[in-house]
């Protein structure tokens, strides 16, 4: 189905199911329980999961397949957002023109930046992309304030032209009247589920993005990209010009980033310059590596993981810690709180850094490899003599069947 083999089709269907059921799956705890703080099924976070999933999937097409480590992809994210907000300002709050244009504009940006940066490889490439992105950020934050509204972020004002705005048009982002921030809430015996239009819009696009990436992975083009990562010399002596391949991958991933940026503005009509900062580029690198570069599902997992930490884990403050350990004697309670305190709440960056190091050191294939190892552990327990073990030196990130 969909031009995929049975296994991939099954995989895709699972992803579709998980994506659509997210509003339910992320609310495992009833509202009144003290664990409700770990629920993540509210619109903004679910939208972020989908959007940063798209961003990371796109980044993975470049980094995971070709091995070119770009430290400047946030620039495309920003460009996408600015495009969409400008379309709000000029036309109306309908998100469609902005989203289409955000893909086109970020593709053009990526074409130019990629064309120049891809003349070099290795760290030189990384530095070139970094330089372009930092230039974009610095200018957007200051000199280009008339276009970007600088520090405050670009937003819509009542005196903007909005030429397509009718008298009854919604005054927030919508798709032909379907307002993105509207939700249906369902209360089921203490469990509260929020089905948000914006989320489902993002989710459908994310599924499409995932499907396209799956097709690319299975295509001759995808194979060529992996070939570039492993041996460019052989590539050239096999009659293949690696430059257009890498450039195509760069532009595709730039378009994904632009789309993600556009969606950010489609969910929330504001585009801040920080979106373009190099740390934002670093974040997508973290997501991809943490989840598993070169795997299909890894980047999405990584994106979800980091966004979850940023929004949920970071809210665990001392009061909550105390309530967790309240059943213990006071001395032990305080000791445990002191021990855990640096790692949660506003210290979540520290946890992230440590986790990230551990993954790079022990799990070069990211969380996906971790899951694979665990499931292999279970499988080898069941099957007595076990399946043929793979060479421990080989990193699954480059294996052809990376769908798991």
């Amino acid at each position, binding site marked *: 189905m969909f031009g995929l083999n049975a296994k991939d089709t099954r995989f895709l269907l699972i992803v579709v199911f998980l994506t659509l059921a997210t509003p339910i799956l992320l609310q495992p705890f009833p509202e009144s329980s003290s664990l409700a703080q770990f629920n993540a099924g509210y619109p903004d976070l679910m939208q972020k999961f989908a959007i940063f999933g798209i961003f990371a999937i796109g980044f993975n097409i470049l980094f995971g397949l070709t091995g070119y480590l770009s430290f400047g992809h946030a620039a495309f994210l920003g460009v996408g957002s600015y495009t969409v907000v400008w379309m709000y300002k000029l036309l109306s709050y309908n998100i469609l023109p902005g989203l289409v244009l955000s893909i086109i504009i970020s593709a053009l940006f990526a074409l130019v930046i990629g064309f120049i940066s891809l003349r070099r490889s290795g760290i030189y490439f990384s530095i070139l992309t970094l330089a372009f992105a930092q230039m974009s950020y610095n200018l957007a934050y200051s000199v280009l304030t008339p276009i970007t509204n600088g520090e405050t972020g670009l937003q819509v004002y009542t005196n903007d032209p909005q030429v397509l705005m009718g008298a009854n048009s919604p005054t927030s982002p919508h798709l032909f009247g379907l307002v993105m921030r509207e939700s249906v809430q369902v209360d089921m015996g203490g469990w509260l589920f929020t089905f948000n239009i914006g989320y489902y819009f993002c989710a459908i696009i994310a599924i499409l993005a995932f499907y396209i990436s799956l097709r*690319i992975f299975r295509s001759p083009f995808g*194979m060529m990209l992996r070939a570039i990562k492993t*041996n460019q*010399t052989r590539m*050239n*002596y*096999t009659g*293949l010009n690696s430059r257009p391949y890498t450039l195509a991958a760069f532009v595709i991933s730039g378009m994904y980033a632009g789309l993600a940026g556009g969606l950010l503005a489609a969910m929330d009509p504001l585009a801040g310059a920080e979106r373009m900062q190099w740390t934002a580029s670093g974040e997508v690198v973290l997501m991809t590596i943490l989840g598993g570069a070169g795997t299909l599902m890894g980047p999405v997992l990584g994106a979800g993981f980091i966004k979850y930490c940023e929004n949920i884990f970071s809210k665990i403050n001392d009061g909550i810690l105390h309530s967790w350990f309240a059943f213990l004697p006071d001395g032990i309670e305080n000791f445990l709180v002191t021990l855990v305190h640096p790692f949660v709440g506003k210290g979540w960056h520290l946890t992230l850094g440590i986790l990230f190091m551990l993954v790079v050191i022990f799990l070069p294939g990211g969380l996906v490899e971790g899951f694979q190892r665990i499931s292999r552990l279970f499988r080898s327990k069941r099957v007595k003599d076990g399946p043929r073990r793979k060479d421990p030196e*080989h990193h699954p990130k480059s294996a*052809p069947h990376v769908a798991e």
Partner: protein
Amino acid sequence: MGILEVKGVNKRFGGLQALGDVNLSVKENTVHAIIGPNGAGKSTLLNCLVGKLIPDTGSVMFDGQSVLGRKPHEINQMGISRVFQTPEIFGDLTVLENVLIPCFAKRDGAFRMHAFETVAHEKEIVDRALHMLDDVNMAEKRDMHAASLSRGDKRRLEMAMCLVQEPKLLLLDEPTAGMARADTNNTIDLLRHIKATRDITMAIIEHDMHVVFSLADRITVLAQGTPLVEDVPEKIKGHPKVQEAYLGQSQHGHH
């Protein structure tokens, strides 16, 4: 008129004359060996043929067209494939994928945006690649990671990757360098098999006399960047100039 015509090629690196007035003609469907002591300019010559270096003067014509100024991938698309001293393969890919890539390159040219096709659906190409693997006795290793192959298998795989493109000219850069005697013999057998089963022109740069004399139809001896003699193997063996310049001092065969 040979398929490969090298005329008056000179190449200097700073003060060093790496190649001095090299003329060479490789006839179609022959195996032409280029031998010479270390530093004779063999590798420089090879690099001039594949586009990695550009000669200062002279011409290199392949199949009636100049190769000078073309990039390696363009030269490959003209019909020249190259086997490296240490096998250059796609280590992270499977054996089958390693052979698929040259098939695509042959069919689709240097670049094609085939992002929405599926490798598995390209029956014709997959069949061709499998057939090629069969031909080099590697069919059962098709799903292995290329990096985990033995050195001999890597060499074989690289050869398969070149041959599957049906090149008009196959360049081999010391294909048995560093190999044990048994592997060397296997490689010789493989090359003989190739020679016997296809219409192919080969140019071999080689140190190992055993390999050269078992395969070559003609031999060019290079010394200090200049061709010394060119002849059939039997004549070369006894040629005094060659004895003096090359064989005399490096009887140890391969290093």
